[in-house]
């Protein structure tokens, strides 16, 4: 549904994104992840036809964002960063304007507007001036206007910013419910949001894509080994040495121990479960096993590893604009 190839955007001497390529399949929800100023908003502005790329191509639904902008714009719903809305219009009147400009027929308009207000929880504010709304409500009105016209593709720049925890959960559930019929690309810097909402992840840093795939693919790619945390009491002698001798174990690191127990982090190749062998070893030696758990690597660990790794490699690279 979205194909981006070698997209580059320069603002004068500053390179905001460079050589960005990715594609999003129909009905998928993809999270765009990156630190501030990484180029997330720039990419989204290009996809929404607001500004042109310096080089490279981007296609939405098979239409080029530059040469077939009108066709692309018929197919997208866009929520820019900070939801810029007309502050001097009431919510319902504003959404009616958006529905009309998106070509929703006169007869269907009232129903469609009521529907998106309902889905975005702004119905009780429909007669209020947008300028008088709190940030959270404004954000939800922004989301409502993006949903109007039932676009195939939704481009959401930080959709949950400024919302309280309950609203965040509601909006995430709403976005999640769009999967299947709508293709969604959303940017965020809240890592758990991506795990909860998205099918795929694109991590961008300093204008370049540094990793992309599903969350489990990224974890496997960045952390090739599985980890098990093991805690035993009553151990004597060279416990680490004994653990290392178990077939399949690649590494053993002692962990800081509390209350006299000994704790270790055992690494093994992904896909090979050594926990059974570890248990047999511990019991055969007569030690007491107090804890054994798989240490899951989260997206956060991936992100920190990938982004921090980049930063230490090229500390003088120019920062892109947001």
């Amino acid at each position, binding site marked *: 549904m979205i194909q981006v190839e070698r997209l580059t955007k320069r603002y004068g001497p500053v390179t905001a994104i460079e050589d960005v390529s990715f594609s999003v399949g129909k009905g998928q929800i993809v999270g765009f992840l990156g630190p501030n100023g990484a180029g997330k908003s720039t990419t989204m502005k290009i996809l929404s036809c607001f500004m042109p790329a310096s080089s490279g191509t981007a296609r939405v639904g098979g239409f080029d964002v530059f040469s077939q902008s009108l066709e692309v*714009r018929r197919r*997208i719903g866009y929520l820019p960063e900070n939801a*810029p809305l*007309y502050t001097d219009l009431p919510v319902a009147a504003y959404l009616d*304007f958006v529905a009309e400009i998106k070509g929703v027929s006169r007869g269907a308009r009232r129903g469609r507007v009521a529907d998106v207000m309902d889905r975005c929880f702004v119905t009780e504010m429909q007669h209020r001036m947008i300028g008088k709304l709190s940030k959270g409500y404004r954000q939800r009105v922004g989301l409502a206007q993006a949903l109007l016209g039932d676009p195939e593709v939704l481009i959401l720049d930080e959709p949950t910013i400024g919302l309280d925890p309950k609203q965040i959960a509601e909006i995430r559930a709403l976005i999640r419910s769009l999967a299947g019929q709508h293709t969604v690309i959303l940017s965020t810097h809240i890592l758990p949001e991506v795990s909860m909402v998205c099918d795929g992840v694109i991590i961008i840093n300093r204008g370049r894509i540094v990793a992309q795939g599903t969350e489990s693919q990224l974890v496997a790619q960045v952390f090739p080994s599985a980890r098990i945390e093991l805690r035993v009491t009553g151990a004597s002698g060279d416990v680490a040495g004994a653990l290392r001798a178990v077939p399949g174990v690649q590494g053993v690191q002692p962990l800081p121990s509390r209350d006299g127990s000994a704790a270790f982090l055992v690494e093994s190749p992904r896909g090979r479960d050594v926990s059974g062998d570890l248990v047999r070893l511990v019991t055969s030696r007569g030690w007491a096993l107090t804890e054994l758990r798989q240490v899951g690597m989260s997206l956060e660990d991936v992100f920190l590893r990938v982004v921090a790794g980049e930063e230490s490699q090229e500390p003088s690279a120019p920062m892109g604009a947001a």
Partner: protein
Amino acid sequence: MGWWAVFKKEMRLYFGSPMAYVVFTFFLVISGWFFSAIFLNYSDFSMRAFMQPQFSQNLNVVDNVMRPLFSNMAVVLLFFMPMLTMRLFAEEKRSGTIELLLSYPVRDGEVLLGKFLAAEALFAVLLVLTLVYPALVAFFTPIEWGPILTGYLGLLLAGGTFLAVGVLISSLTENQIVAGFGSFGVLLAFWVVGWGAEFAAPPWRGVLQYLSITDHMDGFSRGVVDTKDVVYYVSAIALALFLTLRSLESKRWRG
């Protein structure tokens, strides 16, 4: 239709904000003052003409009241119109709403048309309110409606030119004050250029006179619809709107 949606939105914003009312109020106060001054002066003059019939030859209410009133209104409009247009694009750029507006499936030309026609419609409402002046005249004395009608046509064209210039300048900046003062400055320059005509040598005299933005009004208020004047205003509006469209479109290809 996209332009109709934009038109309605702009009308809502005009009447939802104090700007339209402020412009209306002050325009009516100032033009009303001009009207009463001119009209009282005229009635005084016609009283004296009654005593001395040799003066009454040229006494004509359209020529002596409406014509100066129209030319005064044109000058006052030159000061007021930039306030109606300055926000049209500058505010959208400043607040970022242009980013959303341009992501909707409408052509840039439709956005421009909706905005320009909204300003022109607001201006037409203002002109309708000033119909009270010829109505008052007609209450006291028989009046020829033909020249009044052409006079209003002239005002509509001249005001439309002021609005088109204002829209153009609003599309070039994201600062409303700059947009307002910029359009005011340009319009003022096109007004005062006519004054220079008196001192200019023959080939330039005609050029300067033709450029003057308010001089073309005079024919209309005498009841003469001269092609030359219509062409002047219509082409000025078309040129300003064309340049605005280019400036909007440049957003899509300029890096």
